[in-house]
């Protein structure tokens, strides 16, 4: 029976590169998938593209491609990556350049366009009960394209497929649809394919990352965890594993945690390709770091594309200062009081104060002993940069004008982009495909 070997090369834009190289070298992969687009990444890329029409793709594209393409060529591994971000065409051109420099002539690079639907903003409708943002504030708007587009690009005999926004698990499903020729209405098969893609899409989170909790959940060699790969059968059942000699662990616990990660209703995980049902998914250990997964099901896909809109959200500023030794908490509280009074008139939007070590992440229980050192943090949203910088200056002024012993100030101001969802009729946008040879 035919099977496909597929690896996860990255789970976010800044992810480690060497585990991807390790997978290609030792994994005998048919496909390597890079998932590098968080919710806001594409809006930031869109801003870069505005100032330079050849920019707007993943900043690590050249590094990643340079690291993996030679081994991919040797081993016959095809690459699928959403590193096109806001500019898949420019990403493809750059990848062709990289391939030529590496002497990989004839490598076929495809790119997909059509996820950018900013020009269709007037046709957007609200997602569930969430109001649409003000039209004038849109920075970017991208449709979550599906596996059909990835499969179609692979049909062009592409060695590398570069996309913008494609639903994360659909990057993987596209490879399966292409390799097995699955019917796009075989809902149960597609649903199980989405299970496999969903388990792989965050790379290290399946193989021991975001998991270790000493004495409760120990992970061997966390400093060098291997990224996961799946051996997928024609019925979409799969074995999840990782490169031999890599660190980390794939076991029933890591699999169960990742299955439910970012999932709300487990019987209706909505993707552009299928509404997947995880409530029959079964994991079975086949050997060390080898987990069999089966039982995913599905039903019909939604008629609309989900859209992610990047919205201009003014400026965000943050400042921190530490207090240590006896009375540290009381001094930090006094400093907070000073900041509250001095920022009162400027903070027309929103401001927030935390004491790191006491209540910044979770509130310490009332009877918790006072810590030996704490860090006061002020963070706020501002309509303009001048007001944002005012927060930073007020924190910095605490050195000379605040409570005793304030130290170690760090601060930042940045333009903020918020993300809002919407939906758009599927017929409104038709993805396009191109391929070129290096």
């Amino acid at each position, binding site marked *: 029976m035919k099977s496909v070997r597929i690896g996860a090369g990255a789970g976010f834009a800044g992810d480690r590169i060497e585990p991807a190289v390790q997978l290609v070298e030792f994994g005998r992969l048919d496909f390597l998938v890079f998932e590098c687009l968080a919710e806001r990444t594409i809006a930031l890329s869109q801003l870069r593209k505005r100032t330079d029409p050849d920019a707007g793709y993943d900043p690590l594209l050249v590094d990643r491609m340079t690291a993996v393409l030679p081994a991919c060529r040797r081993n016959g591994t095809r690459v699928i990556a959403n590193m096109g971000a806001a500019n898949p065409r420019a990403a493809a051109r750059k990848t062709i350049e990289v391939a030529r420099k590496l002497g990989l002539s004839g490598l076929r690079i495809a790119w997909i366009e059509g996820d950018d639907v900013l020009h269709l903003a007037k046709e957007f409708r609200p997602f569930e009960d969430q109001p649409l943002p003000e039209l004038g504030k849109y920075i970017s708007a991208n449709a979550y394209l599906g596996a059909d587009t990835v499969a179609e690009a692979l049909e062009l005999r592409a060695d590398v497929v570069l996309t913008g926004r494609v639903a994360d698990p659909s990057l993987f499903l596209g490879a399966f649809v292409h390799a097995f020729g699955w019917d796009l209405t075989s809902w149960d098969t597609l649903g199980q394919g989405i299970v496999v893609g969903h388990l792989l899409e965050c790379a290290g989170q399946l193989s021991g990352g975001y998991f270790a909790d000493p004495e409760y959940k120990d992970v061997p060699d966390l400093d060098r965890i291997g990224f996961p790969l799946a051996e997928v059968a024609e019925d979409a059942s799969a074995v999840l594993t990782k490169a031999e000699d890599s660190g980390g662990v794939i076991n029933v616990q890591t699999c169960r945690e990742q299955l439910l990660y970012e999932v709300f209703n487990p019987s209706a995980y909505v993707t552009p390709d299928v509404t997947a049902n*995880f409530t029959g998914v079964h994991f079975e250990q086949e050997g060390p770091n080898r987990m069999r997964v089966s039982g995913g099901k599905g039903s019909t896909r939604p008629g609309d594309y989900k859209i992610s809109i990047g919205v201009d959200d003014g400026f*965000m500023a943050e400042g921190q200062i530490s207090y240590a030794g006896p009375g540290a908490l009381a001094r930090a509280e006094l400093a907070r009081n000073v900041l509250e009074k001095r920022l009162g008139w400027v903070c027309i939007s929103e401001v927030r104060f935390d004491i790191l070590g006491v209540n*910044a992440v979770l509130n310490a229980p009332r009877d918790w002993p006072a810590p030996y050192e704490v860090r006061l943090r002020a963070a706020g949203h501002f309509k303009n940069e001048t007001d944002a910088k005012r927060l930073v200056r007020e924190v910095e002024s605490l050195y000379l004008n605040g409570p005793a012993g304030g130290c170690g100030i760090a601060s930042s101001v940045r333009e903020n982009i918020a993300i809002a969802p919407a939906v758009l009729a599927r017929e409104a946008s038709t993805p396009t495909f191109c391929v070129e040879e290096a």
Partner: protein
Amino acid sequence: MKLREIAHSRAGDKGNLVNVSVIAYREDDYPLLVERVTEERVTELFREHITKPVVRYCVPNVFALNFVLHRPHGESVTRSLRLDAHGKSLSSFMLTLEI
């Protein structure tokens, strides 16, 4: 006994929604989770973080419960002023529940 002794947990976010899973270490403990880790108790635990009662999904095939938390408007990873803008620490907080 704290929930941490019999279950593990992972938090994920999309917009202002966060999911927090609760997964039994031993499959035999799953009925205990269903009985003790109720919507009412989890809503009470997370009251400072949420705007409406939590929703619980039972996922017996993986011996897990999945909770959906609605954070206030603006409390999403791209907008929140919190140090933990994602809500990733909510999994650790879940495990403090007394069983």
